[in-house]
């Protein structure tokens, strides 16, 4: 948003110019509270803070209560109620980044910038923060610097980048000194290596442009849905719902206005295959959305791009503009009368929960990213209460390819119940991290050979909400019915501490719980503390049952998928790595609590009273 400069040019006082800037931003979104996330993102970008004054003005302009605006602003991690630096550096602190040397990189930034993580420099120039997985595990450690990303950081490169930033270099110029001359795709490729290690015939091989869309334009909506149903395509985001069935539900729902939403909020730690598709197959993604729109009778679409992938915004906007010019979006697509569809980009702002379709819809509506009550389901009551299809990026890409290659072609790949190919994001302790397109049905063992990860002691399939499996299960297969995954495969060698991994993932869920329901909001905090007890060697044998028991309550009473799967890092490692836990438990001496530390509990009083303890300082008086 360049609106800030206009206000400044008019010579207004900063406060007044801030207010003008806010008015311009709100006006750009028609003062529509449904676009609150866009408004707040723009204000944050321009002013580096959502101030109380800004909240009052935005509320006034959009007709909301200030508390409602604050509710949105305080929900998203990339929005801030306290000032952030003009350059905000967000280090990805996923466990993969930690194992790849994050601590040294972090120290380099802290030293050169002279601030600790979590701080903003006194002159307002820099903020340094940590953020969960930004979808770059194949080139960790990685970081976001405002809207650009840095990958494969080393302490040396981090020092260099930090020094250049401190000297006033724009973040963009860290990528290339002729950044402004590069095209969006060149910029994206300069920043991020897409590491396509194996291209299958559906998505990453040769893809004829818009062949699927042409076939769909020649077909009736009913024929499209039938094709998708016959192909056996299931959602690729993780849940695996039958795509054709979802489209059929939406197509038969009442109401005139329908929506197609592409879920590009790829937030599951260890997943980055949608990043690759959005960079390498953005047209195919939009093509799939357009086909879905024809199938269900939608005229409006939204591509919800996670805030961490904001570096792809220009690229995607270019693709959308180009397709409008070429008659592939807009009115009468491909000359078909009444085939109208267009797509807007919605950029997220740092909230894993928005990957859940209900939360994603809330977020598109300008609300905090809280899941909606189900039923009703989005196919009948979705975005703005209208029938809505929400599918993952990969699912849309598959749909477009099915319309071209035919349902049978797709159905015949993979194995029964899991048809077609799947993209896998592979990272962690292996020689060749990156994206692999394979038919469903590969065993973990074969996968490990293919990626150079034969030393694996543990494999996390499906990210933390999936399952951590041990060597004795490497014969299991990557299918919906065995090891189901949205695509994340994180490999850990025998050198890694399983409890450290589990504790990290529990802290991730604590950070990302929306807080709507009790078990997920509170229970996960308790679970995290319980794992910490194990790591500290202060757990007792009963704590194993306690964690299982608490997990069960969280799983069975949580309101959405986040809570229902958040105990999985604990549950799957209790099942598959029991020795890791039993090695750390100790029956308490005399039934005293090992977690209570008398020395630290009286430390303050010792200093205040300037004396030692008669009872607990053993050599007192000696």
């Amino acid at each position, binding site marked *: 948003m360049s609106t800030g400069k206009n206000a400044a040019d008019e010579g207004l006082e900063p406060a007044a110019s801030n207010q003008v800037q806010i008015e311009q931003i709100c006006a750009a979104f028609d003062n529509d509270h449904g676009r609150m996330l866009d408004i707040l993102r723009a204000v944050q970008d321009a002013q580096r803070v959502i101030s109380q004054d800004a909240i009052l003005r935005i509320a006034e302009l959009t007709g909301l209560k200030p508390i409602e605006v604050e509710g949105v602003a305080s929900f998203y991690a990339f929005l801030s109620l306290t000032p952030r630096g003009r350059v905000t550096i967000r280090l990805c602190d996923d466990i993969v980044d930690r194992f790849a040397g994050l601590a040294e990189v972090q120290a380099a930034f802290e030293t050169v910038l002279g601030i600790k993580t979590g701080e903003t420099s006194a002159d307002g120039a820099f903020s340094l923060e940590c953020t969960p997985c930004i979808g770059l595990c194949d080139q960790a450690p990685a970081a976001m610097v405002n809207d650009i990303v840095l990958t494969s950081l080393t302490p040396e490169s981090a020092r260099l980048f930090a020094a250049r930033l401190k000297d006033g270099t724009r973040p963009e110029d860290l990528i290339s000194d002729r950044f402004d001359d590069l095209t969006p795709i060149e910029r994206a490729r300069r920043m991020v290596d897409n590491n396509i290690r194996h291209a299958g015939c559906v998505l990453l091989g040769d893809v004829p442009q818009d062949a699927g869309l042409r076939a769909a334009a020649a077909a009736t909506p009913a024929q499209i849905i039938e094709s998708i149903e016959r192909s056996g395509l299931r959602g690729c985001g993780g849940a695996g719902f039958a795509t054709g069935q979802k489209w059929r539900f939406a197509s038969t729902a009442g109401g005139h206005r329908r929506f197609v939403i592409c879920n590009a909020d790829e937030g599951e730690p260890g997943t980055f295959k949608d990043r690759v598709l959005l960079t390498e197959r953005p047209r195919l993604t939009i093509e799939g959305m357009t086909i879905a729109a024809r199938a269900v009778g939608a005229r409006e679409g939204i591509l919800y791009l996670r805030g961490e992938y904001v570096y792809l915004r220009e690229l995607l906007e270019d693709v959308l503009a180009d397709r409008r010019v070429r008659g592939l979006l807009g009115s009468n697509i491909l000359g078909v009368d009444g085939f109208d569809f267009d797509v807007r980009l919605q950029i997220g702002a740092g909230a894993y929960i928005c990957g859940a379709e209900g939360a994603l819809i809330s977020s598109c509506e300008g609300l905090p990213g809280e899941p909606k009550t189900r039923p009703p389901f989005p196919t009948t009551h979705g975005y703005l209460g209208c029938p809505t299809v929400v599918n993952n990026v990969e699912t849309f890409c598959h749909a477009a390819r099915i319309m071209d290659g035919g349902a049978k072609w797709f159905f015949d790949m993979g194995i029964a119940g899991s048809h077609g190919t799947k993209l896998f994001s592979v990272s962690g302790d292996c020689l060749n991290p990156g994206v692999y397109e394979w038919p469903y049905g590969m065993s973990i063992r074969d996968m490990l050979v293919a990626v150079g990860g034969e030393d694996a002691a543990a494999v996390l399939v499906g990210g933390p909400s999936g399952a951590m499996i041990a060597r004795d299960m490497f014969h299991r297969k990557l299918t919906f019915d065995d090891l189901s995954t949205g695509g994340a495969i994180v490999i850990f060698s025998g050198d890694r501490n399983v409890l450290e991994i589990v504790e990290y993932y529990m802290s991730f869920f604590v950070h990302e719980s929306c807080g709507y*329901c*009790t078990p997920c909001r509170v229970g996960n905090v308790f679970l995290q503390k319980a794992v910490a007890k194990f790591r500290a060697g202060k757990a007792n044998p009963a704590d194993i049952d306690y964690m299982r028991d608490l997990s069960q309550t969280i799983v069975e009473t949580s309101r959405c998928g986040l809570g229902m799967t958040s105990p999985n890092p604990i549950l799957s490692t209790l099942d598959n790595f029991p020795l890791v836990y039993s090695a750390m438990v100790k029956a308490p001496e005399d039934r005293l609590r090992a977690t209570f530390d008398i020395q630290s509990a009286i430390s303050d009083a010792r200093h205040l009273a300037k004396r030692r303890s008669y009872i607990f300082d053993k050599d007192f008086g000696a």
Partner: protein
Amino acid sequence: MSGLRFEIDGVEIAARDGQTIMEAADAAGVYIPRLCDHEGLRHQGGCRVCTVKCNGRSVAACTEPAPPDAVVENETPHINKMRRDLVEMLFHEGNHLCPICEASGNCELQAMAYRLDMTDPTRFPYLEPCRPVDASHPDIALDTNRCISCGRCIRASQDIDGKGIFGYVGRGIHRHVAVNGPDLAHTDATIDDVAVSADVCPVGCIIRKRVGFSRPIGERDSDHGLIGSNAKAKADD
């Protein structure tokens, strides 16, 4: 006539189309424990205390449409154990000192703990958050230490009073109820608001000044039996 039937713990319940499990149960005089739900307010499904098993699947009774011909389990040991966990989580999330709280005896959180027999030594840690007391308003005080984030005040203020005095801010464990202004005195709140009435706040968070401890021991809600024990009588009214 449209309608459907299902059973809760073996009792057959008649429901109208569009009713939730809880609405149908209430009408039939079958009590399902709840905290964030309150008569006359929109359902939220946040506290999860009303979790029941509907054909074996966990659902929140307050938001789940009444299921035709389903078997719903309500008061089983397993479900009540999970409910007890949830209530205990709420006790540990805030700072709930019953002995000094003026809502004690008329508190739904406490009453739910009694009903669910929350007396075993706890396994949960106390989170002991640092939360402010807002005594700025001449007639109303907010002691957010006791807030359980049920959001009943939010819905009552939005939907009944038409004021929107309260709202949620923050995320995850930091999500909490806040007021629409720097403090309560700088909102439109008045003592007549439904949102601040004793019924709406289930705990001792929203306090009406100068009337505390007015009901003597022996005459408080908890002195008249377990919460929900009057469900049958209420349904027959």
